[in-house]
């Protein structure tokens, strides 16, 4: 293992009662990676993300970020160390406007989150960063509308913008284009493709075109366990993978 | 001391019958119904009024209380409660508090604010002593325990052996899937709410002698019902049953041994329990 690994887990297990949702998963993500995580529905991809970000507590196993063991670290601390995720179903702050949301996140990220006496967006730093994020995600026109009034495409963009406002070093994207109409996908995909090279990205995705365009490495998850891992070409050529996805062979008779 | 235990069990069984409707409503419709005590009060007053004016025997009145309160519950569910299911909990709380206030004021207006006394039939007024008086069992409390125990068995049977019970359990588990399977969720809600309210009315009628009956009954006892549900959970029958028994015994014993501290102990215990296990003592997993 090179020292260039930014995020990894060893022997990660999660059991719910009798069900093993995550089965001794080993994963390592190197710096600047574009790492795709694929697998059939119910394979445990989102559970893995939840474990890595600290939303769920693992039954066994360890997680490392930038070489440090973060298995016991509360999730908000992991975010502060640069591990940020997006959600498959938009998790937004419906009562706030996109501007307020991003200004708050940026303030939080700049360490101004605890200030109670100074109005939001007082500093130039905050406003400049908000401006660039809003522009980048095409949210300038709707920046003062309440989030619950936004169209789905804009909500999805905001979902991503929030994550980027956190200045991630490792970004976990959970099906970023899920439910986005074809016309607006390009917008979103361009943004994902334009992410800085030193940000490491793990992408859960079902769309194989996207995966092949984007990923330099793939991990296939089936029934909570890693089936195989490698470059997209290697994985695509793997007969086991074809079986899982296309149901070839007598096993599904 | 055995007598205390006996009295506590009787009180606990009564609390269970009173509170089970609340537990199921919360578990099924995710609705915090603080007006549940008002149904109990309705049952109590129905019995009192029927006995006083129609001169009907006690147990018949209790049965009628059950039926009439169930009917009341059904009507209210279909007209009012149904519109509140998807609203935030705060709105539900305020709505049911509003209903309670209306019920309390209405009863005060029509019947007056004095305590209502029930004339128990003669055979219930006696007392049996065992073991040289170590265990004194009032016949009234014995009747309560028997009736409630029978009801618990009936409820358990209803839940596990009937189609309705299966549909109810499915709906509690996952409403969307249940509806997808063709279960008429609206009918289940209506029937369950009516049943729960009816049981509350039955409890109010049966227990009027022990608990007292006056217009502020719903407000006085609401906290007890909430305790049974919060501690016992909403996903089983046994959880609330055990919680109710614990509460009944703790309350009776507390009032006897430490009368100065009164309800203080019960409230503190509940808070400690809820802080330690917010999902309740008897449920598995998260809330």
């Amino acid at each position, binding site marked *: 293992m090179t020292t260039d690994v930014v995020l990894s887990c060893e022997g990660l297990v999660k059991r719910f009662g009798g069900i093993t949702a995550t089965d001794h998963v080993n994963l390592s993500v190197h710096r600047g990676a574009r790492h795709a995580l694929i697998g059939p529905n119910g394979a445990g991809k989102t559970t893995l993300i939840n474990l890595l970000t600290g939303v769920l507590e693992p039954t066994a196993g360890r997680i490392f970020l930038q070489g440090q063991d973060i298995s016991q670290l509360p999730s908000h601390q992991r975010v502060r160390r640069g591990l940020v995720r997006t959600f498959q179903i938009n998790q937004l702050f419906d*009562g706030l406007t996109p501007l307020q949301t991003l*200004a708050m996140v940026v303030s939080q990220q700049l360490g101004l989150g605890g200030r109670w006496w100074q109005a939001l967006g007082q500093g130039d730093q905050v406003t400049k960063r*908000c401006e660039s994020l809003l522009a980048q995600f095409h949210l300038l026109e709707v920046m003062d509308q309440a989030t619950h009034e936004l169209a789905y495409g804009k909500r999805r963009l905001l979902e991503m913008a929030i994550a980027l406002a956190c200045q991630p070093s490792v970004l976990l994207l959970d099906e970023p284009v899920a439910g986005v109409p074809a016309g607006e996908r390009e917008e979103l995909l361009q943004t994902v493709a334009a992410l800085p090279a030193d940000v490491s990205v793990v992408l859960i995705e079902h769309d194989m075109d996207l995966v092949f365009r984007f990923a330099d490495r793939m991990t296939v998850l089936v029934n909570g366990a890693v089936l195989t891992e490698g470059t997209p070409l290697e994985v695509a050529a793997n007969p086991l993978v074809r079986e899982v996805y296309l149901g070839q062979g007598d096993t599904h008779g | 001391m055995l007598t205390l235990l006996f009295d506590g069990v009787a009180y606990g069984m009564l609390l269970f019958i009173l509170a089970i409707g609340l537990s199921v409503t919360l578990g099924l419709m995710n609705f915090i119904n603080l007006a549940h005590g008002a149904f109990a009060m309705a049952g109590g007053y129905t019995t009192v009024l029927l006995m006083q004016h129609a001169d009907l025997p006690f147990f018949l009145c209790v049965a009628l209380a059950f039926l009439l309160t169930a009917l009341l519950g059904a009507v209210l569910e279909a007209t009012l409660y149904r519109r509140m299911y998807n*609203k935030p909990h705060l709105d539900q*709380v*305020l709505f049911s508090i509003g209903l309670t206030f209306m019920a309390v004021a209405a009863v005060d207006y029509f019947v007056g604010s004095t305590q209502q006394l029930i004339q128990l039939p003669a055979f219930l007024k006696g007392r049996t002593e065992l073991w040289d008086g170590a265990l004194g069992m009032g016949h009234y409390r014995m009747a309560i325990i028997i009736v409630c125990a029978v009801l618990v068995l009936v409820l358990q049977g209803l839940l596990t052996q009937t189609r309705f019970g299966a549909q109810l359990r499915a709906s509690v588990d996952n409403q969307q899937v249940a509806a997808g399977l063709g279960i008429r969720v609206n009918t289940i809600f209506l029937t369950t709410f009516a049943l729960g309210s009816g049981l509350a009315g039955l409890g109010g009628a049966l227990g009027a002698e022990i608990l007292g009956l006056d217009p502020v009954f719903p407000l006085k006892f609401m906290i007890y019902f909430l*305790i049974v549900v919060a501690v016992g959970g909403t996903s089983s029958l046994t959880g609330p049953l055990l919680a109710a028994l614990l509460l009944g015994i703790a309350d009776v014993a507390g009032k006897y041994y430490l009368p100065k501290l009164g*309800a203080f102990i019960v409230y503190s215990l509940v808070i400690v329990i809820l802080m330690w296990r917010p999902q309740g003592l008897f449920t598995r997993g998260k809330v």
Partner: protein
Amino acid sequence: MSAVTQSLRLAAQPRWWSFALWAVLLVLPYALPTHALLISEITIIALFALSLDLILGYTGIVSLGHAAFFGMGAYSAALFAKHIHPDPLLGLAAATGLTMLLGAVCSLGVLRGSDLTRLMVTLGVALILQELANKFDGLTGGADGLQGVVMGPVLGYFEFDLYGQTAAWYALVVTLLVFIGLHHLVHSPFGFSLQAIRDNRLRAQAIGIDVNTRLVTVYTLAAVLAGVAGGLQAQTTGFASLDVFGFDRSADVLLMLVIGGTGWLWGGLIGAVVFKTLHSVISAWTPQYWTFWLGLFLVLLMLVGRERLLRPWTWRRNI
């Protein structure tokens, strides 16, 4: 100035009518001297409502027992004045200190669990305090209440007069100071993080907000403000009784917020005024059955939808 900066700056500015309303309020005890006591009463309740809105409207914590802190403040201030020192500001400081402790401890109870659990815990604490105040009647006067609280002059100069004018101004000034402080708070990053916690606790955690610490902080602050309101109550009326802990009080203030609107600073004040007016109008009509009409109002309001109270043209849509 860019559009972004403009938008943010504009949002944080107090509206002109805020200043105007406050100017009117501050003049009221002079303009309506015979109603000074009523003015104090409404101001104090409004402050109490404001403290509840901090946790209810801004942070999303449902509490049925906020009166626990109001009562704690009332009895602390009353006892302080009686046994230690009659200076009102010192008394408020005492009330603040004690409610801060109580609030911090109680905040641990609202961190986990469902809405029902939170309801139970908050309700339970208020009931326990009421019981305690009742039992320790040597100290608190029990069911008769604590009487004969005589206050010294405010800032050593402004004596409490029989009409209650000083009391009214005292209450108004304290409330204004709190209002200004809260205005800064709710427009700050901290304030917005509270709303984030209210709207989506999961995402708030996922952007690096330490939700539990925030909750403890805001709950303690709300408790302190409620305690200040309670302290003012005891100091301006010279009296403290068990009903300061009562469920009625917690429910009434909840109602005021619902009427005036949650999540904005004027909600508590407007709600308090409307509630008190409704109460006196309806009580004059049918003195005993205020509870009935209140209940009916609540039921209808909830059916129609809280946020539509101030927009009557939307009522027909849903009934």
